[in-house]
Each structure stands twice: as structure tokens, then as C-alpha cells.
């Protein structure tokens, strides 16, 4: 019997037709749009507010676009905002943060990548125990280590200096970065390493000529993790530095939370946006590589 309910005589063939406005699609895209708006709204308010003058802000229209666009708050935030007695804005903090960031990122990634390489390819007696101890380090709460580190830094004369903070960041980056690199190098076929050994390459030759060129994705992941982590760090910055060497985050806090005078919302917003710019740029510039590296480093291993 022919099925009579089918009025059209079209034989199913080729791709199955899909309705654009099906219930599932409306639900899916509706949810996505709502969530996106929810997350983007604060950013929108910040940008809009940072471009308004103080009189306009006092009118109270938080979501309205600026009637008169002014970049004065951005200039003030960068070079004139006061923290305590210093009135040179965020620029000093930015310079400090850069001086902290670059050596910390380079040092921690360099050491961790060699660590990971050695732990996955040159297994020695006790290497697994060593690795376990290192990983346990990642689970110890920072708070318990704050004061001992103060004493250590004081004893070696690095307390309050940028060098001291670089050391702290390098050490604290070690567990998670080593794990990342070890897992990535473990996913590279062992035979490649054996072939290089038969070809007479040593520890550093294999690292630089075979492993390093293959590890670009995981290096990108490590750089992103470290740059955003160190740039956004507040706790270590506020404890181990002094006002002259405060990183940007600490200075931002001091600007926003200063209690004297008028609260300049537009300047605060501009200062916050400037501070957040570096991680933001990093994410946008490396999105694809980041996802590839995370997938390669985290899943296998």
C-alpha cells in the first residue's frame, strides 16, 4: 500500500531539508543571544561611561550613549589620576607591569618546557615522584605561603623589588606549566625521540631541533596563561612590591578606591579598560592557536 498521507510525490533524496525557524533553532540562538547580551552589557556600560563627561554621568542615564564624546577621562586615567600623593596616573603602573610580565613569562615558560621535556622523555629514577610533588604544589593554597615567601625574599634582599615578584611568579607558574608541557611532549610519538637518539642528538639538541619546533601550539597556550595570569595578579603584587614598583592592577585598585574628593566614574571606567586591554588583545590575537593548543595539551597524556 502506498502511504496516502504524503500528498507530495517527492522521493527523499540528497540532504534532508531543514527549517530555518524550527523550535530548536529559536531556542538555541535565543539562548545564545541572551547569554551574550548578559556578558557584553557591563563592557558596553564601561565603554559608554568612559566616554562621557561628569555632568552627563550625574544625569543618571547609565545605558544611554554619550551625547558629547570626550577622551578626557582616558587621558586623566593614563597620566593624571592620583593615588595617594602620586598624580601620574596608570602609566607608571603599566611600565612596572611590563617589567614584571616579560621576564616572568619568559623565565617560567623556558624552565617549565625543559622540565616537561625531561620528565616525559628522559625519565630518571624518581622522576614520577618528583613530578607528583610538583603537581601537589599546584593544590596548596597561596595564602599559606604568603608570609614564608615574605621572609625568604627579605633574606635574599629581593623584598619590594620587581626581581622578587618575577621570582615568585616564575615559581608559582611551575606546576601547571610543567604539567602542560609534560603532557604535550608525552603525546609526541616516542619513536621520534628514539630516532633522534640513534641519529646522535643529545639532550639539548633534541629539545631545540626536534621538540621545540613541534611544540608551538602549547607554547602559545603557556604564553596566554602566563600573560593573563601575571598581568591580572593582584595578591602577589600588593604584598611583594612597594608603591614605587606597584603593578598596574594594584594601582588601578588605588585609583578606583581612593576616598578623597569626587568619584570620577568615567576615569575609573577608562582606567579599568586600559588595564584589561593587554589580556583582551592577547585573547583576540591568538584565539585559534589557543584552542588548538589546549586540545592538544590537555586531552592526551
Amino acid at each position, binding site marked *: 500500500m502506498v502511504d496516502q498521507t504524503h500528498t507530495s510525490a517527492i522521493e527523499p533524496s540528497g540532504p534532508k531539508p531543514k527549517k530555518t525557524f524550527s523550535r530548536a533553532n529559536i531556542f538555541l540562538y535565543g539562548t545564545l543571544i541572551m547569554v551574550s547580551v548578559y556578558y557584553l552589557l557591563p563592557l558596553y556600560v564601561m565603554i559608554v561611561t568612559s566616554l562621557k563627561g561628569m555632568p552627563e554621568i550625574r544625569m543618571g542615564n547609565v545605558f544611554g550613549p554619550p551625547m558629547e564624546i570626550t577622551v578626557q577621562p582616558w587621558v586623566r586615567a593614563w597620566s593624571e589620576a592620583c593615588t595617594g600623593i602620586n598624580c601620574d596616573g596608570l602609566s607608571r603602573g603599566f611600565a612596572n607591569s611590563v617589567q614584571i610580565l616579560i621576564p616572568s613569562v619568559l623565565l617560567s615558560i623556558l624552565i617549565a618546557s625543559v622540565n616537561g621535556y625531561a620528565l616525559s622523555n628522559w625519565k630518571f629514577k624518581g622522576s614520577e615522584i618528583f613530578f607528583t610533588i610538583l603537581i601537589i604544589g599546584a593544590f596548596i593554597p597561596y595564602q599559606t605561603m604568603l608570609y614564608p615567601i615574605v621572609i625568604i625574599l627579605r633574606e635574599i634582599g629581593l623584598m619590594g623589588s620587581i626581581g622578587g615578584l618575577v621570582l615568585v611568579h616564575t615559581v608559582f607558574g611551575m606546576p601547571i606549566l610543567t604539567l602542560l608541557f609534560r603532557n604535550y611532549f608525552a603525546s609526541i*610519538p616516542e*619513536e*621520534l625521540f*628514539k*630516532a*633522534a*637518539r*640513534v*641519529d*646522535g*642528538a643529545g639532550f639539548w*639538541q633534541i629539545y631545540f*631541533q*626536534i621538540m621545540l*619546533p*613541534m611544540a608551538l601550539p602549547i607554547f602559545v597556550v603557556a604564553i596566554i596563561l602566563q600573560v593573563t595570569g601575571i598581568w591580572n595578579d593582584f595578591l602577589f603584587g600588593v604584598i611583594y612590591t612597594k608603591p614605587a614598583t606597584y603593578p598596574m592592577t594594584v594601582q588601578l585598585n588605588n585609583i578606583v578606591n581612593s576616598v578623597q574628593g569626587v568619584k570620577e566614574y568615567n576615569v575609573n571606567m577608562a582606567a579599568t579598560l586600559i588595564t584589561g586591554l593587554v589580556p583582551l588583545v592577547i585573547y583576540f590575537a591568538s584565539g585559534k592557536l589557543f584552542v588548538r593548543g589546549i586540545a592538544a595539551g590537555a586531552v592526551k597524556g
Partner: protein
Amino acid sequence: MTNSVEIKNLDLSFGAVHVLKQLNLEIAEGEFLVLLGSSGCGKSTLLNCIAGLLDVSAGQIFIKDKNVTWAEPSERGIGMVFQSYALYPQMSVRKNLSFGLKNAKVPKDEINKRVSRVAEVLQIEALLDRKPGALSGGQRQRVAIGRALVRDVDVFLFDEPLSNLDAKLRTDLRVELKRLHKKLKNTMIYVTHDQVEAMTLADRISIMKNGMIEQLDTPDVIYSRPCNKYVADFIGSPAMNMFKGQLSGDTFHGEGFTVDVSQYDFDTHSRREGDAWLGIRPEHIVTGEAANGATFSCNAEIDILEPMGSDTLVWIDFAGQPVRVRTEGQSGLTPGESVTIGFDAARLHLFDSQTETRL
């Protein structure tokens, strides 16, 4: 004749697991030796020990009469080819080939000379400036073989080099390897689990099981006189038919059949009484007219047929168990039909049922 590779009382254990046990092996100059065994038998481990990629627990390894037990892989005078090719992905073929020579600080002119000579031998000249990613599987394996060749070494080690290739390429490259060996006359040690590769390539085959060598002999002897039941089972496809029974004098009593084994070539001092296994290869069982003149013949019913073109595998119910018989491709047999099967006593294999060694 000097030995190219010599292994003395080699032991290797990972913790409580003994992978290689008191292993002795002597490989002559220019010999093609195949290490054959199922996975986990220690054949690749043995190769890695010879290459120096694994530290041995006890024993010694000599290459060209030099004790290399403690030497680095690069100092041993070996070249190695891996199953997964293991080419350096970010280097061109030329750089892949010259990497080892650069590490050994060979002069540039010499490197260029050797690379172009090897490229010519393996016909990969056109590929020299490509990256491994742009090559097919067969080309990659050729480059990997080239990387071992440029090192100008005495001993080549192959770790299942053809297992990652498809069936056709595998047979092509197998013949090429044989030609290469004929031309170079180097010592080659080749690990595989494929018995066809082993039979076709080897001068001698070493069959391994549980970290020990079961039998070490020419392919011909391994096929015609397997030294125990394991080897007999392992070599030959389809596998040998085995029957349990008792041996008394010149007669083997199976389950519902007796065979006169007076024509069987017994090992000189073996016993001729007691429980034993009788083995006969599927290709040594004859059917129809030919069976009438055989030492043993009887009628049996065909269960199923497996035609394979060049020949047909016939499953026959005999002595209470399915028996494999290999016949010609166009046998004209049908399932359910009754046929006469037979075999000669000279083609039999008898094994002790306890020790499983050849009688």
C-alpha cells in the same frame, strides 16, 4: 666468518616483569635475521636493546666484536627504521637524511655526497626538498630507510617497518627491501609479527615467545621441522591441524583413527610411547583420487568452503573436530559432500603432549 652482532646472556626486566630471559643470539656478517613473534613476546624490546635505546639488566651486546653494552645508540654503528617512520616533521627530507651526519660532524661535501647517493638508491631524489607531511606512506618509509642508509653503518635494525602500510604497498616494499639487502649485503635485523614477511625476507628466523627464543633456523627448516608445538602453530597460514592421541611404537592412535607413522622422520633419541600431538598442515592434506595412495586416507564430510581465488580452504569434520584442508582454487567441491582425504606420514609432525617438543 665473524659475527656481526652477538648477544650474550641478555636479561631485561622492568620491575618484577622479566621481558627478556637469558637470551643468546649470534648474527653473522651480512645475514638477514628476522625476529618473529606475537605481540608482547619481547622482539621489539630486544631490538631496542641492540640499538641502545633500552638499558639491559644483565648480559652483553657485541657489534663487530666490540662490546657496546654501555655505548650510546649513535656510537654503536647501527641505523634504525621505525614502524611510524619517525621522520622529523618540521625538516625537509634532505635535512631528515643529513641530521644524523651533522650531529656526527661529517664534512658538508661528504654529507651532500652521501645524501644524493642514498636518494638515488631509494629513488627519492625528487622528494628531497619536501616536508614529510607532503609524502605518502610508502615514500615516508623510503625516506626513513634512507635515514638509516646515509649513516653508512654495519647493522640495520627494522622495527616492523611495513606494518603501517596498506597491503599492496607492503608487498612492493618487501621486495624492494630484499633487493636492497642483496645489493648492500649489510647485516639486517628485522622485527615483525607477519610470518609472510619473515618467510620471504629472512636468511634465518628467530621465533620468540615470552622473552625467549623458541627456534632459530632458516625459514625452510622452521616450516618443515618446527621444533615444538608453538612454532608449528605459529608458522603457516592457515594454521596446522592438531590431533591429540597416543603413540605406541609405529602407530599413532587418534580419536577414532590410527595412523602408521613408520615413515615419520623421528628425532634420533626421542621416545615412541605415550601421549602425543599429531600435526598436519592444511596444504599437505590431499583430497579425492590423490588421497588413495597416501599413508592414511578416509572419507569425511565437507562443512564449509572458503574460496580465496588462488586456492580454497575447505573445513572438514574429521575425528570430532573441524579440520582445515587447502585445495586448489576451482575445486568444484560443495558443502555437505563426502570426500576422501589423506596424507603422507613423511609430512606429519609429532609433538610430545607434555613438553610440546618435536618427537
